């Protein structure tokens, strides 16, 4: 099926070239970082993870969110999702690719990364995260490829693929749970030391990922003859609104515990993020944008007339996506490091090279996504009118 990606309009190729150019810029700056060291980033001894690990965390959520389509479609035989599910699986693949690249970009000694497998350490959450992420990449490649291949021939997918599809469900939950465990088990980082972290991660993932999927599905409809269907968009919209409600609720629970308990350590990171601490308020405007966008998009999604209007729905999804991107891709990581173990405030802001590398990795992710979607779209355009049998 790969040949489908090699035939396309001028616009398609121009888009790929544009993304390739952005990734080249990223690669150039990565080379600089590789030569100089991670000192080229804004990171320092007090804030040791930043933009890269934030993006990684956020994108694990996007990857996991494919399960929100797989469950209704394959477990509940919800036929409305027949067409959209492949978009979810392919989005997951590109998200995992980005996750792996962001991890690599964050490594001080990337050439030694195989040490994770040469010296497997079951007590280390990074070890488990590597295992589940790579496994998830494999499962989604397998399931996406086999089901789309069958669609192309107009036949039902082979029976042996079913167990893999079912396996992808707990596996998707596992990738984001283990990612939350990277943070939630560290003593002395009060902001992260919260039992609800994994639940929060999953809720924000199941809101942010499907919101992105709505945006992508509408773009696909605009640029091709492949339409996942109005009803599917609406159903995904309902999933987004429930998940976002859970996410905002869980965040509220964190606020309650932090402030009602009155334990300073629990409140300090929240204060730093939302009001500023000891005169440092770099992240405050961003966090309030995130908060306002979260609440506004949630209201929009919960009002049926607005949700049913696709233009407004997309607007709400964009706001929601930005809100979660700030909250999880940035605030969550930096907040955990401020104040430092000495209760001093040392802040962080990404440098230009760091931002360029981040942009480059997103471009590679979109490149992978565009190629995969091109294949899916072409197959679906060719077999338009033929009943999909899964």
């Amino acid at each position, binding site marked *: 099926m790969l040949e489908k990606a090699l035939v396309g309009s001028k616009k398609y190729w121009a888009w790929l070239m544009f993304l390739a150019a952005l990734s080249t810029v990223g690669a150039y700056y990565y080379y600089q970082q590789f030569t100089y060291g*991670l000192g080229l980033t804004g990171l320092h001894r007090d804030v040791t993870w930043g933009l890269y690990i934030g993006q990684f965390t956020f994108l694990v959520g996007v990857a996991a969110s494919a399960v929100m389509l797989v469950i209704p479609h394959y477990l509940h035989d919800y036929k409305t999702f027949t067409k959209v599910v492949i978009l979810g699986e392919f989005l997951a693949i590109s998200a995992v690719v980005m996750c792996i690249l962001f991890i690599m970009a964050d490594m001080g000694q990337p050439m030694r990364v195989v040490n994770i497998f040469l010296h497997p350490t079951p007590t280390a959450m990074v070890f488990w995260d590597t295992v589940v992420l790579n496994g998830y990449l494999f499962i989604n490649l397998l399931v996406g490829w086999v089901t789309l291949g069958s669609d192309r021939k107009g036949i039902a997918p082979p029976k042996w693929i079913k167990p893999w599809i079912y396996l992808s469900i707990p596996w998707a939950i596992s990738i984001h749970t283990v990612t939350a465990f990277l943070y939630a088990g560290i003593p002395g980082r009060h902001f992260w030391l919260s039992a609800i972290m994994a639940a929060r991660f999953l809720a924000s993932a199941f809101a942010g990922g499907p919101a992105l999927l709505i945006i992508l599905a509408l773009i696909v409809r605009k640029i091709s003859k492949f339409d996942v269907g109005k009803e599917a968009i609406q159903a995904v919209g309902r999933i987004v609104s429930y998940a976002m409600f859970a996410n905002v609720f869980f965040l509220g629970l964190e606020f309650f515990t932090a402030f009602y308990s009155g334990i*300073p350590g629990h409140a300090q990171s929240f204060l730093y993020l939302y009001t500023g601490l000891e005169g440092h308020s770099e992240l405050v405007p961003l966090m309030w944008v995130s908060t306002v966008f979260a609440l506004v998009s949630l209201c929009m999604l919960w009002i049926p007339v607005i949700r049913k209007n696709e233009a407004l729905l997309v607007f709400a999804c964009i706001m929601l996506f930005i809100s979660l991107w700030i909250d999880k891709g940035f605030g969550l990581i930096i907040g955990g490091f401020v104040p*430092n173990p000495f209760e001093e405030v040392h802040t962080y802001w990404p440098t230009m090279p760091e931002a360029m590398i981040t942009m480059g990795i997103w471009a590679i992710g979109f490149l992978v996504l565009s190629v995969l979607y091109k294949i899916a779209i072409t197959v679906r355009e060719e077999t338009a009118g033929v009943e999909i049998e899964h």
Partner: protein
Amino acid sequence: MSMDRRQFIKIAGISSILGFGASVASATHNVWTQGLDPSEVNRNPEALVAKRWAMVVDMSKFKNDEDVKKVVTACHQTHNVPDYRNADGSVNRKDEIKWIWQASYEHAFPGQENKYMSEHIKEMPFFVLCNHCDNPPCVRVCPTKATFKLPDGITMQDEHRCIGCRFCMAACPYGARSFNWRDPRGTNPNGEPFIKNMNKAYPTRTKGVVEKCTFCTERLSVGKLPACVEAAPKGGLLFGDMEDQNSEVRKIVTNQYTIRRKSDLGTGPAIYYIVGGSDHA
């Protein structure tokens, strides 16, 4: 079977390349999978040994900044810790690497201060360093076992194995770990090396790996006390075996009131602090 010298060397050479030599030399276990047992290594008879190394810090013995500086310099010189400075000579906090330094009471023991306590104690500087915990979070989270516990209680690290993920830095509740954000073997814009007066007896590090205090394992193994202990005024930094009832550190901790940093986290730190200070032992 007889073989001439030439044949023997040939077979021995090939088999040691393939690793058979090791299994012949030590038929009891396979060093490739199990590593060496301490009993198989010839230890320096002078080496200082303990069941549980620990340190007592008594800041009252440090009379002035000079006493303090001597300790830090001794440690950082011995271990080739690079000195990063801004153009104006101040410490470049962004790249900074440190194994032992000072923090005020309220920063070293956050949550322990109260607003009525004397400014003297609140502002009083304490040496802070790796706590060589009984239950170190850094070891638990390391995905390559690059940081690990030694049988004598020291939390050690292998900078050749470290992949630079910095999970140990996120996990350490004491901020004891430093990362090489740039090449420590380099020079500043004026051409001065970051490591001045390099100690050839101790390795330098590469960029992209984490490092910290090692309780001077390399000195203990040749019968010397840690560099900081040697450089401190008498009784300022005491080092010994906490499991040995007759050791000086044990006697102080048993007989006097000492505190440890964030012991409520269950890490079991091995650095004990005498606050206020008094004559002892």
